[in-house]
Structure formats: structure tokens, C-alpha cells
């Protein structure tokens, strides 16, 4: 329980750095999917290595933030919710990394007719997570703005669901040239990409309730 220390300033810098890491991770994820769908293997592997580093960095930052908050008894009343929020934000970059890894390990065959949809899906799902970051930053300075910033998160999450549904429908209803195994594989990959926006939505729900409590 320290008064007049630099801990708080250092911690706020680290929290910002954590948010930056997640944000860059989302950008890399989108570029990675784009590279895979376009068949640019080198670029894809570069993005894979980069997201792996970023995920490791986010984990380290998350642990150090949590440690400091416990040791210096920072935000004692909101601590458990803060830890949950950090965990959910970290889950976003984890899911993004896992998705790219699935592409790398399982090498799914994405038909050329689905390229555009796949890129769009990763864009929209990534947008949902990306829009979460300004809201998370606002929570620390202007909690009254959090709710309006979260509207975009919910919007992109719904768009992701719609797009994912359309692609799945197209795959199973129209693309008879694909085998059932290929269709199932595509559905599985779509589900992974969708997961990013779902995690963003969970984090948004938590953030919204935390912001309301701050404003009361």
C-alpha cells in the first residue's frame, strides 16, 4: 500500500502497452489471414511469428500488471474485475494466434470463390476486437464514454455472426464440389475466426458493467 510512488505511473504505462500489444496483434491477425487466403506463404509465416511474439509479450505484461496490483494494493475494490478484463483481452490475442496456427498446421483449402468472404470475415471479426480497445482505454479516464464506444463492438460482432452464417450456408448449400470433410474443415476455421468477436463481446459486457459501477 504505497503512497507517493512511481508505481501507478509505471503501471498505467504498462496497461497502455498491453492494449497496444493486443491492437497490433489484431492487425497482424487480419494481415495473416489475408496473406494465407492470397497464397503468400512467406508473409503468412512472418505474421505467424510476429503474433506469437506479441502473444508472449501480452502474457508477460498481463502477469506483471496483476502482480503489481496485488503487491501495491492498487484498485483493491475493482481488482478481481480488472483481472478478468485483462484475461479476456489477452484471450483475444490468444484466439487470434490459435486461428493463425490452425491455418499453419491444418492448411485448410479455401476455395477461390470464398477468398473475399474469408478476408471480410477476418476484417469484421478483427474490427469488433479493435473497437474494444478505445473503450478499454476510456474506462481509465472517461468511464462515461465507455458505453457509446462499445456500440461498435456489438455492431461488428453481429456482422461477424451474419457473415459467418452466410459463408457456412454457401459452403453447405451451394458448393457441391467440396467434400463433406472439406466443408466441415471450413466450418471449423470459420468458427475460430468468429471466436475473436465473441471474446470481444464478452469483454465488452464486462467493461460496460465496470464503467457503470465507476459512474455511480
Amino acid at each position, binding site marked *: *500500500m504505497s*503512497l507517493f510512488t512511481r508505481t501507478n505511473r509505471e503501471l*498505467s504505462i504498462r496497461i497502455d502497452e498491453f492494449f497496444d500489444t493486443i491492437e497490433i496483434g489484431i492487425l497482424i491477425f487480419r494481415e495473416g489471414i489475408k496473406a494465407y487466403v492470397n497464397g503468400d506463404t512467406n508473409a503468412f509465416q512472418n505474421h505467424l511469428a510476429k503474433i506469437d511474439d506479441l502473444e508472449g509479450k501480452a502474457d508477460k505484461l498481463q502477469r506483471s500488471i496483476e502482480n503489481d496490483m496485488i503487491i501495491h494494493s*492498487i484498485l*483493491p*475494490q475493482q481488482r478481481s474485475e480488472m483481472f478478468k478484463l485483462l484475461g479476456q483481452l489477452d484471450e483475444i490475442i490468444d484466439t487470434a494466434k490459435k486461428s493463425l496456427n490452425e491455418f499453419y498446421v491444418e492448411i485448410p483449402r479455401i476455395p477461390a470463390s470464398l477468398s473475399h468472404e474469408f478476408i471480410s470475415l477476418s476484417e469484421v471479426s478483427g474490427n469488433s476486437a479493435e473497437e474494444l480497445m478505445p473503450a478499454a482505454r476510456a474506462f*481509465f*479516464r472517461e*468511464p*462515461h464514454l465507455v458505453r457509446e464506444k462499445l456500440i461498435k463492438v456489438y455492431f461488428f460482432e453481429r456482422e461477424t455472426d451474419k457473415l459467418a452464417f452466410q459463408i457456412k450456408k454457401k459452403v453447405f448449400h451451394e458448393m457441391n464440389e467440396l467434400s463433406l470433410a472439406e466443408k466441415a474443415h471450413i466450418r471449423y476455421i470459420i468458427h475460430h475466426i468468429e471466436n475473436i468477436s465473441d471474446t470481444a463481446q464478452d469483454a465488452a459486457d464486462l467493461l460496460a458493467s465496470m464503467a457503470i459501477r465507476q459512474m455511480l
Partner: protein
Amino acid sequence: MILLFLTSGLFLGWTLGANDASNVFGSAVGSRMVSFTRAAVTAAVFVIIGAVVQGSGAAETLSRLGEVNAMGGAFTVALAAGLTVYFMTRAGLPVSTTQAIVGAIIGWNFFTNNAVDSGVLTKIISTWITGPVLGAIFAYALYHLVKTARRRIKIHLLKYENWLRIGLMTVGAFGAYSLGANNIANVMGVFVPSIPLEDADFGIFVLSGAQQLFFLGGIAIAAGILTYSKKVIETVGTNLMELSSEAAFVVVLAQALVLFIFSSSSLSDFMVRIGLPPIPLVPVSSTQVVIGAILGIGLYKGVRNINLKVLGSIASGWITTPVAAGILSFLLLFVVKNLFSIDVGHSVNPPASAGKGMSMAAIIRYSIPVLLFITAIYLVWLILSEKKKTERINKKYYE
């Protein structure tokens, strides 16, 4: 011998420190914003300073209510108040040291055939009501101020919390100072007329006789804070509602301001100088002011359902505590005087004769049986309803 007689006052001081200190820093410690040791040491130091520097105003008002002119009387009055607080707390009834000491002094007045100054009594009783009301008003205004300021300056949450932590320590110290200044009258007020000590010259400052007594009382309160308040915070805590750190800051500040207002003679003099009526310097119950402050924050947040039982318990405490303390004081004075042959005081200001109309004292004298009856019924109702509630919970739990 003086120390022996002072023990009851010191005991009262100890219980006050143990119980009321949680009003000053209970929520800060409960929210883990401030460590207990740091808060307790700060509170202990500032309670003593407040008692010595600013304790005389409220003590003087209590003396005017009943100038207990024998050490035996002062001992018994403080003992009666202490025992009332102890037994009512054990019975789970709402109680305040402030109201107990007032009741006990009135009991002494009756026993020694001294008139009760109705003006002083009205002044004291009016502050019991205005104290929580002022607490609510201050808390409402301060909470609005804090919230607006935070929104305007867009401060980072971590930085804001750091400031709040510093603020909690500062207002906690101010709260402890005000608690000492205001509530020392409850602990040592009755001893001031009966124990005339000589001034003590320490070279750089002089302590008057009353201030020496207040110093001793302050140490007793500090001892209560250091030895037992942690247990009180852990077991009772802030049982009204869980407060956020900024609400805790506002509650402590509002309480400190109210206690300060009712104990600052310079502020009262200032009011007179600018042509306003003087502020009554009266001991007020810190717990009730805190309840008022929490209510103020609740109103700001737009709480619709106010627990009327809590408010009812405050109002019932205004009657039950002084009546119980008064009766106990009367009985104890009788025992001490007749069984141990100790001088408990004499009449210096007999009540006006019945022929000149009914005096305030006479009204109170005749209303005692009525109040006793009401109190007894209230106690029976409380015990029965508590029993019924326990049975209902047990039934629900085991079924």
C-alpha cells in the same frame, strides 16, 4: 484516588475509541485502500490532538446540562453511560455514547435535585436531529462535487485512486481530530467540574486542568482504537452498505465536517460576529452522522428504497438510550451513595417549585413512567420480532 474515579470515564473512552473509530476509517480499511496500522496510528494521534485543542466547547455545554460537582457522582454517571452502551450493544439495540451520557447526566440531576436546563437540553436534542441531516446534505453536495470534478479533469483511474488514498488518510486524520474534539465531552465532560486540576506549564505550552483530563480521555480513546477497533471493523465492519473508495472519502469528510462544526468555538464566534446565531457546541453521535452521510450518497445515486428500519432505529435510539442511561444512573447513584457512602454531588440549582407552573424538569419527571412503559414495550417488540425472524430464517434454511 482521582485515577480510581476516572476509571469509568477512561472505560467509556476506550469503548468510544473501539466503536466509533470505525466510522472514521472503517470503510477505508474495509476497502483495503489504507492499512489498519497506518489508519489506527493516525487516528490515535489526531484524536488526542483534537481532544486537547478543541474539546472544551462541547464539554462546557454538557456541564451546563448538569454540573456534576462530586467525583463520586462523575464516576457513577460515566459508569452508567458506559454500562448502558455495553448492555445495549450486546442486546443488539441502537446506541450512542453521546445520548447515553446525556441521559446519565439527567439521571444525576434528578437524583441530586438539580434543575434540568431546558434550553441546553433542547439545544442538545436538536443537534441529534440536525447532525445526521447535515451529514446527509454535506455528503450529497460533496459526492456531487467529487463526481463532477472527476468527469471534468479526466484523471487516470490509477492516479485518481492514488489521490483518493491520500485523501482518505487526510480526511481520516481530520475525522479523528473532530471525533476527539467533539466526543471527548462524552468521556471527560462530567469530570471537569468535579476534578479541578492546576494548570500544567510545559515551558512552550500550558495545559489547563480540563485539557489534562481531555488528554487522559484522548489516550483512552486512542487505546480503544489501537487495541480493539480492528476487531470491531472485522466483525461489524460497514454493515450499512459497502462503500466505494470515493464514497468512503465523502462519508468520512462529511462526518468530520459535522463533528467539527459542532465543536469549533472559533466557528461559532465567527457566526456571532457576522450577525448569525451561534452554533451549538454539543457532542453528536458520529455513527448517526455517518448513517446520514450514507443516506445522502444513496439519495444522490437515486436510491428509491430507503430502509426505514435503519432510520427508525436512529430515532428510537434518541429515546431509549437516554432513558435507559438516566434510569441506570439514578439507580447506581442511589447504590453508591447509600451503600458505599460516597458523595455523589449536591443540589446547586433546585428545580422551580410546582406553584410557579410546570417546569421542564417536572415534565420530564412525570413523563418518565410513560417513557419507561414505551421503552419496555419497544424492547419486548424488538426481542419478539428478532426471535420470529430467526425462527423464520431457520425454518427456511432447514426445509
